[in-house]
């Protein structure tokens, strides 16, 4: 497989007339060892011995999109509870083992998954596998820890959203762009639902989702595979398979036919806007040209969005395009924070014309090669640490459903043509598929700073949140 990727890259460089400038780089292939236990647990292992560290990750295939109405924020709340002790290992003790070894551990929750990770000196592997197996089925959830974690999650929400300039914009965008699919809600969920969670509720959530047949274990780094497999069998093997059904049916978002728009007045210093366009799920054929399109549009200071909005016209402090590629169809978006004295409309006008160009004529081979080089660099930088490699492998296995994509997926990028990008732009990056959120600094007596410092925004309108 890999020689052909290099060959293709060589061809691409030849096509650009730059073959003599630089020989193509080689992306080394990854040998993946796979193990499936009778209880449904899947383990994927990659050995790498240059530095004596190992990464362990457990991916539970449950995220905020699996939550039921009235029980939002549970996936994330549960992520917190996983650190609060089992019948064997007391509260705070999980991380104390990791810390004492000199390692790091943490977790995160997305729309699609909940991921627990540890990076430790390689001699700790056995202990970490034991600890992860233990909390997969032995969690001890008390009313006290649940009540405490609710308060912590509320502080987290205040920090990330309520006390953060522009903090509510993403929520508004998703709430407006999605009408039926659970991506409408962000992973932090409703504080009311979190507040009402009972021990029985979270116990049910645990028994449904935190089971070996809903988990993928990734081990990357300095270990010996046969020994590692023995430990995995010994510690995870006895855990019982889960029997409760996991919600995997999500209503498809109906096709958007007209532009949607919301104006917000917030306590921020500068106006801003974000445009979100519905796009297909990650791993589907159109995802690749769209990802390259986001590179072409805004990565690096020679990209048109940076060039035109930030550098030449100086309308924006910062502007970028990016795709939130996920298991189900999500949004491609463009955002800008405007300089004082400039309105969202000015920035939107520039973005409109840049997107129109992308729809109206194919990008140059040179621009496309640059984007492909940037993708290659991302792959390479994304493989410098064992943890990054574990993340890449987990994503390929759980979300894209094929671990070997870590080897084969780069070719999908290299195969993209200028025509593919034009076709994707015409299909997705069009006004009737767009949700626009405009943000204006609020003029109130409360925030004299925004008032005193800001050039006045175009208008003031009532917020729509």
């Amino acid at each position, binding site marked *: 497989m890999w020689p052909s990727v290099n060959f293709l890259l060589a061809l691409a460089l030849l096509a650009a007339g730059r073959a003599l400038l*630089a020989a193509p*780089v080689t992306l*080394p292939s990854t040998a993946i060892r796979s193990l499936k236990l009778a209880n449904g647990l899947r383990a994927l292992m990659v050995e790498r011995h*240059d*530095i*004596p*560290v190992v990464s362990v990750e457990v991916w539970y295939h449950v995220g*905020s999109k699996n939550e039921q109405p009235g029980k939002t924020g549970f996936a994330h709340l549960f*992520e917190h509870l996983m650190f609060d*002790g089992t*019948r*064997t290992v007391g509260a*705070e003790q999980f991380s104390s083992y990791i*810390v004492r070894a*000199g390692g*790091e551990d943490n977790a*995160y*929750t997305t729309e699609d998954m909940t991921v627990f990770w540890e990076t430790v000196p390689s*001699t700790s592997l056995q*202990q970490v596998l*034991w600890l992860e*197996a*233990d909390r997969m*089925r032995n969690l001890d959830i008390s009313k006290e820890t649940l009540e*405490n974690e609710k308060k912590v999650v509320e*502080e987290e929400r*205040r*920090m*990330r959203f309520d006390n*953060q*300039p*522009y903090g509510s*914009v993403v929520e508004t965008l998703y709430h407006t762009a999605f009408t039926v699919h659970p991506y409408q809600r962000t*992973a932090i969920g409703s504080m009311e639902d979190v507040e009402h969670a009972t021990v029985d509720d979270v116990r049910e959530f645990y028994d449904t989702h935190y089971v070996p047949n809903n988990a993928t274990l990734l081990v990357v780094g300095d270990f010996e595979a046969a020994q590692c497999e023995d430990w995995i069998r010994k510690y995870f093997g006895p855990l019982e398979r889960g029997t409760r059904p996991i919600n995997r049916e999500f209503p498809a978002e109906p096709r958007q036919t007209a532009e949607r728009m919301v104006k917000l007045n917030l306590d921020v*210093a500068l106006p*801003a806007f974000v445009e979100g366009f519905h796009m297909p799920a*990650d791993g589907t054929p159109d995802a690749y040209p769209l990802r390259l399109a986001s590179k072409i549009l805004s990565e*690096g200071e*020679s990209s048109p969005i940076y060039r035109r909005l930030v550098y030449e016209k*100086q309308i924006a*402090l910062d502007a970028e395009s*990016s795709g939130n590629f*996920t298991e189900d169809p999500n949004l491609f*978006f463009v*955002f800008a924070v405007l*300089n*004082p004295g400039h309105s969202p409309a000015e920035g939107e006008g520039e973005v409109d014309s840049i997107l129109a160009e992308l729809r109206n004529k194919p990008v140059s081979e040179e621009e496309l090669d640059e984007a492909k*080089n*940037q993708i290659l660099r991302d792959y390479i*930088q994304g493989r*410098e640490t064992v*943890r990054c490699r574990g*993340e*890449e492998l987990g994503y390929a296995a759980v979300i894209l459903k094929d671990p070997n994509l870590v080897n084969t997926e780069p070719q999908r990028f290299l195969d993209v043509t200028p025509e593919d990008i034009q076709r994707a732009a015409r299909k997705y990056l069009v006004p009737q598929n767009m949700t626009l959120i405009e943000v204006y600094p609020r003029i109130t007596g409360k*925030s*004299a*700073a*925004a008032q*005193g*410092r800001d050039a006045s925004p175009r208008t003031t309108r009532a917020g729509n949140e």
Partner: protein
Amino acid sequence: MDEPVKIRDLFAGRKQPAPGVFLLRVPAALTVAIVFLALSGTVLAQTPAGAIASELGQFPPLVPPPKAYVLPAPAVRTLANGLKVVVIERHDLPLVTLRMVVKAGAEADPPDAPGTAQLVTALLNQGTAHRSAEQIAKAIDRAGGDIDTGADWDSSYASLSVLSNHTATAFDLLSDIMLHPSFAPAEIERKRRQTLSALEVAYQDPGYLADTAFDDLAFSGTPYGHPQDGTMESVRRLDSADLKSFHSRYYRPGNSILAAVGDITPEEAFALAERFFGNWEPKNVGGATPATSSPAVATRIVAIDKPDAVQTQIRVGDAGIPRASGDYYALTVANQILGGAAANRLFSALRTRRGLTYGASSELNCYQSAGSWEAKSFTRTPETFKTLKVILDQRRELYDHSITENELATAQSYLIGHLALEFEASDSVAEQVLDLMVRGLPLDYWNTFPAKIRALTVQDVQAAIRRHLDPEHPFIVLVGNISEFKKDLKKLGAARIIPIASVDFGSANLERPLKPADKP
């Protein structure tokens, strides 16, 4: 210090799990990280909390100590003009990272012109004697390159990573931007505008305000007591002559170090360094290095009033130690226990036991001639003083009763075991090695670090805490809705209350008179 708000994190909210992690696909709509999970510090024995044995057996298996990781010795050569070149080979991935540091950062800002060093670095890749800003951007993008420039305390840097088939281009570009930036007035205007806009946003961000105010207090009267990104007033005033003068004084081969890490041999790297940096003239700029002390701040307690805040940002701490202090290792251990990277008392007291916050930590910052030791947290407005009191009590506890043997052992084993994790990515290797060289530390520093940490006793750590932690008179900064806790604030004593709109980090009392018509 926190960087100004990263707006892109909010919109392109695909937050990465950790800096530099998994760049290709940034997964989370909300990366809900549990930062700094902690242990209480007192119970570390492998004692099960409940008596029920799981099918796994009662205890996690014990682990052998980490394998010693010996950082490969870098190859070092000094060019005839005095430029030091350091090379670390890693051939597993086709990537080369170049990082150049100049041994002068924001501490070298003229006292009346904070932000100079930073603005100089912002303009390095915005046009040179040979290339326009656009040509530089194009060349970097073509090489799959990634550039970063900035000014820290004690050093300024430019870092450029490229696919290894573009290595020569990277040397060429880095040399051009470091040696020949043009500081064209039009480019300065662009960056000025961007910097002012970024400051507008930062001045609404409670975290930025708290960090910056704390540093102004703790570093008062030292070269570090001003914001690295400058003030509205200084940024408006800086011109091409200021930037050129800073550049010609400090950007010299004898004051700089170049590191090359990755898919490159020392021979290749030295040859390319000679080719692209060999002609850099070691000219001497006359006169003594100017004094750079920031204004002395008279107060120890500052409260910034942000009436729309729903949380209060809290900072409590002391002036710390310079990097060369003999107490560096002991305080590193003490800081690890109070609020360090993983296991800490503050996290346990504030989050695990009381649910007052999402995050609690402490930082020991040690620079060339000064330092700070700072506890950081935030809480919902009504709990502001409860949280502040817990922090003050934890500091008092540390001062009065020091640490336990168990805490010392855990901190030691964390600091030693964690070393191998810090040398995975090329740019972090380059950063670590350059930091040693900038600070005049030996290149085998990390290989001798474990023995120095292991040698510390509880008494050593206690003595250092007694020397550098003042339980009675800490610096305190609160940023929040003051009307909700005004009464408690009065009890603290002589607090300076500053409305958010009149914050001025360039002034000696952090405040400027507020006029209704005040415009930037």
